């Protein structure tokens, strides 16, 4: 078990290296460089040249890349030239806000998604199932940013019951968390529904029924846990997607998290922050994947982790 985790982590390092390199490539190939941005439209060429040298941007891309890798290996992501602070510490100060948003949304999505999925999947094709299926398609289809805006329109502007943007109080969390949770709830509900419906077709469910159990007993005693195994895994794997949704939601609600930081950093050619943030996100996503796998092997006694590829 430990060995497998170590192995997974090693593969993880490989993936992180690739991820870091990919982002490095994209941001360094992009037009526009930090020196001109930093100095603004009024800088003279000598100033720009000097700053370019100071930032090490005059060196060949390959040399820059080697330095970059060496720094990353030491977990040093350099300083944000915009903010004058270590890029990673800047990213880390933004992380809690994003984490708060994501965890709240996940909680909402899991509670409502699993409940709806269970109701629908227990009796596929029935009325409840149809209603749940239709509404989940709708929830998955509405563009997050638009839903966010409409929620602002209704709850903040028309009804005036919730703040429209910014962070701080629990009330501020409601709209962004709900916006982010809606499509995720639909995803969880659909997954649960499919999984429950599939599980209910398993022979061991017939066995359970043959013992004279009532349908609720069968559903809760035998189907629920087994059908939640893939759901748990996929919820773990969906953390990446949720992070993506958070980028948009944060922008709609001015939530001071990683998402808004990254969008600004990309536009501002703040290489260090983009690299640190994407690196961190990649690490978190991978960690969630690993946790999902571990959880999978915990929940399903058949699975030995080594067989999970």
């Amino acid at each position: 078990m430990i060995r497998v985790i170590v192995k997974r982590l090693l593969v993880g390092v490989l993936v992180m290296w690739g991820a870091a390199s990919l982002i490095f490539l994209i941001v360094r190939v992009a037009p526009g460089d930090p020196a001109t941005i930093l100095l603004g439209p009024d800088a003279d060429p000598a100033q720009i040249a000097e700053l370019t040298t100071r930032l090490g941007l005059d060196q060949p891309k390959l040399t820059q890349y080697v330095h970059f890798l060496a720094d990353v290996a030491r977990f040093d992501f350099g300083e944000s030239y915009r903010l004058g602070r270590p890029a990673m510490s800047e990213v880390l100060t933004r992380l809690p806000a994003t984490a708060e948003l994501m965890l709240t949304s996940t909680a909402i999505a899991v509670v409502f998604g699993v409940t709806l999925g269970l109701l629908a999947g227990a009796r596929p094709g029935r009325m409840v199932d149809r209603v749940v299926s239709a509404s989940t398609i709708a929830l998955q289809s509405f563009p997050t940013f638009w839903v966010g805006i409409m929620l602002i329109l209704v709850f903040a502007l028309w009804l005036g019951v919730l703040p429209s943007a910014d962070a701080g109080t629990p009330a501020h969390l409601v709209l962004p968390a709900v916006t982010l949770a809606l499509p995720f709830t639909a995803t969880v509900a659909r997954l649960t529904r499919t999984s429950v419906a599939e599980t209910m077709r398993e022979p061991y469910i017939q066995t359970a029924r043959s013992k004279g159990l009532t349908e609720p007993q069968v559903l809760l005693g035998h189907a629920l846990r087994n059908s939640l195994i893939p759901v748990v895994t996929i919820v773990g794997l969906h953390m990446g997607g949720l992070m993506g949704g958070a980028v948009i939601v944060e922008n709609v609600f001015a939530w001071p998290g990683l998402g808004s930081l990254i969008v600004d950093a990309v536009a501002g050619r703040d290489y260090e922050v983009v690299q640190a943030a994407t690196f961190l996100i990649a690490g978190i996503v991978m960690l969630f994947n690993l946790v999902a796998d571990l959880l999978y092997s915990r929940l399903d006694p058949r699975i030995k982790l080594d067989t999970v590829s």
Partner: protein
Amino acid sequence: MSDMLELVGLVVDLPGPGGAVRVVDGVSFDIPPATTVGLIGESGSGKTMTANAIIGLLPDGATTGGALCWRGDDLLRVDRRRRRRVRGREIAMIFQDPLAALNPTQTIARQVGEILRRDGLDRDEVRRRVVDLLDRAGIPEPARRLNNYPHEFSGGMRQRAMIALALAGNPALLLADEPTTALDVTVQARILRLLRTIQESEGLAMLLVSHDLRVVAHVAHQVVVMYAGRVAERGPTATVLRRPAHPYTRALVDSVPAIRTRTALAHPLPGTPATPANRPAGCAFHPRCPLARERCRTEQPAVRSVAPDHWTACHFAEEIADRV
């Protein structure tokens, strides 16, 4: 109130893409107490659906007709509570693939003891009973295996656990649906022996569903042969296998390859088994039947007695001994 299960003209219709399909079509036979009845047939014969109808676990949308008489009730008509009480406690079932039929995420003890726990027995009592059940099912050192998961058992052991699970409710009738099909030859023999021992020692009635004549011949006192959802022939095992009163039974017997001798397989039955979805008119077997003539194409033969306890659904049963 007898402990005999009697099927009277059992009908099962399943919804299909082109309308309802009658997968079980007027099946009648009975399972006397302390008797093993073998239910044999090829794919699409309706044998598994018959067993499912008895335990009451038909797929969604299935409709039934006829009657299932059990201890004075028609199981097709009793209320849901009663039906559930019967299930597991009076009639229990063993499934084909023990790995699939056991919940992979629960321990053997938990699954075997579930019905006891639901009956309100305390933990120690449940544990004691489960150990006893596993022991009766021939699992060595049962106390040590209680917390194992199904995947930690070998195929044979799983089926033994399944048998223990079925016995937990102390049933009077055991339905075994292809209990050894998924097992290796050597294991199969042991499981069949176990089933027979249990049936005899507990005085159970048993319905053994199988496609393998050899299995049925080995265990069953009586045989019911099904073809395309209908009963073709039924009677005491020895009689049916030695002197079949239906050309289909005859062909089946002839198709079974012997191990120690090389039979000629000279005249295999032509064609493929009819299915309920496209069941020929008249006698469903007539397109493949060497005895078929005009009457068979139009008139569905009634099940009739050719000897005491021996029934056939063939117009020309008497000719079989001579012709085939």
